[in-house]
């Protein structure tokens, strides 16, 4: 019974004289091996070299800030709700008077955690977020032997606040801040 057209019947005839010398067979095999040296490599030497990501690549999460540097996240829990891996947890707190420059909304995430061991990088959190607070970036979580390092806390996720010097530079004033 023939299942595919590619199947070949095994030739069980006794070897001819030239076949029993093995040399033509050896050379044929070597030709295949040497031919691969000149072909394009299938691998890259990561981490010195990286492959380009596709524009829709979903990598490590980031918690965004608004134009005034305030945290956008309001701990509404929709990212945790939409998360199919249940990787996201959070605890909310109320903004106190005087904290308006830190948090955009009346409520904010006091604790925010993503378990990158559970995360499947589906991007549902990004889609669910009503405040445009969470984004998936083009970087991958750095590998590590310790599992503890994969529990990303809010400090690890939050976009760093702009320093004064950076802000001044952005406004077109390149003079560094006097100490």
């Amino acid at each position, binding site marked *: 019974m023939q299942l595919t057209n590619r199947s070949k019947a095994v030739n069980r005839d006794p070897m001819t004289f030239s076949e029993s010398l093995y040399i033509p067979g050896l050379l044929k095999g070597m030709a295949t091996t040497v031919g691969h040296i000149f072909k394009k490599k299938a691998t890259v030497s990561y981490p010195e070299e990286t492959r380009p990501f596709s524009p829709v690549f979903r990598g490590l999460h980031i918690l965004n800030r608004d134009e005034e540097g305030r945290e956008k996240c309001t701990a509404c829990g929709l990212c945790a709700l939409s998360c199919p891996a249940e990787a996201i947890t959070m*605890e909310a*707190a109320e903004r106190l008077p005087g904290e308006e420059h830190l948090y955009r909304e009346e409520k904010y995430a006091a604790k925010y955690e993503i378990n990158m061991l559970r995360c499947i990088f589906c991007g549902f959190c990004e889609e669910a977020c*009503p405040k445009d607070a969470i984004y998936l970036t083009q970087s991958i979580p750095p590998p590590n032997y310790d599992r503890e390092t994969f529990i990303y806390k809010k400090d690890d996720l939050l976009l760093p606040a702009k320093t004064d010097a950076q802000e001044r530079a952005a406004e077109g004033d390149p003079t560094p801040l006097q100490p």
Partner: protein
Amino acid sequence: MAEAPATIKVIIDNIPVDVAPGTTILQAARMIGGDVTPPAMCYYSKLEGSGGKCRTCLVEVSKGSEKDPRPMPKLVASCRTGVMDGMEVKSMTSDKVLDARKGVTEFLLLNHPLDCPVCDQAGECHLQDLSYEHGGAGTRYEFDRRTFDKEDIGPYIQLHMTRCIMCYRCVYTAQQLTDQREHGVLDRGDHSTISTCIGKALDNEFIGNVIDVCPVGALTDKTFRFKNRVWFTKPVDAHRDCPTCSGKVRLWMRGNEVFRVTARKDQWGEVEEWICNDCRFHKKEASDWTIEGPSVVNRHSVISQGHYRGVASPSQVQNLMPEIMGRDPKFLLNIHEVSDVNRPQVDLSKIGGPAHGTNFLPNLHTDDV
């Protein structure tokens, strides 16, 4: 004079139902149930005189009655219109009604801030349900929404006037449940607001029920404020021996923590039995209550998310690993040692009001491991 018949027959969306004379169309539709029932934002069957304000329950009466078969000229508010013998009503089968509901929803949302991500009512909000079901995707309103300063109306109840849709339910509740009503509607028209008479606090024994009757997040529980989203807490029915009320409540728990206590609600989102402030605000220990079992939650509700049925906790499952591999598995990570969320040192359910940054200070969660 002939005696009035014991029951009269009405047809709602081609479904006949026999009801007692004096029943309203809305109540008759609720007897049929399902999609036929018009939504109601202000009508509350437990409160006398409620209804007729929000206009979401508009229906078309295509045949007035057996004796006078003319249709009613305009859409009528089903919560305030009594049924007649042989009346034919169109609710979801009428395009006019669906269009009117869409319009009413747009009006209700005109001044609504849509701050659902912040609001504690999200997930059990009737206005949210209404706008998902009947509302349009966008708004045509171009002006500023009206805003209010936050007003303190007592130690336990938070008033967010921006979210209010002026359904008057809380006013009727205070009028009919307590001996002295201390809040009401001030001013008229677009300026009308729910408020206490110049900064009075609401502290009647049963005033906490205004939180439950509020269809939106205008009145919320301060002791639950921002503690958790409702859909991350597990509702269980519980009771206790209460000297002032029936003591039959619904607890919203996370693990053994009681985050919130509310009255039990029926399928129309109406309170079954009123509960007192003591049960609602002060009994936040699981040991205060006799837990009857998980509440029945509509499986289309977001609150039913994560309620896995028939799942045993790890302590209940017989550990077969030693038999299989000769030893217990080595745990590579204990999430409770690493995670900052839900630390045993930070007991959110014990904090009187909303948590602040100070409640999560680093020295509160030093590991003793």
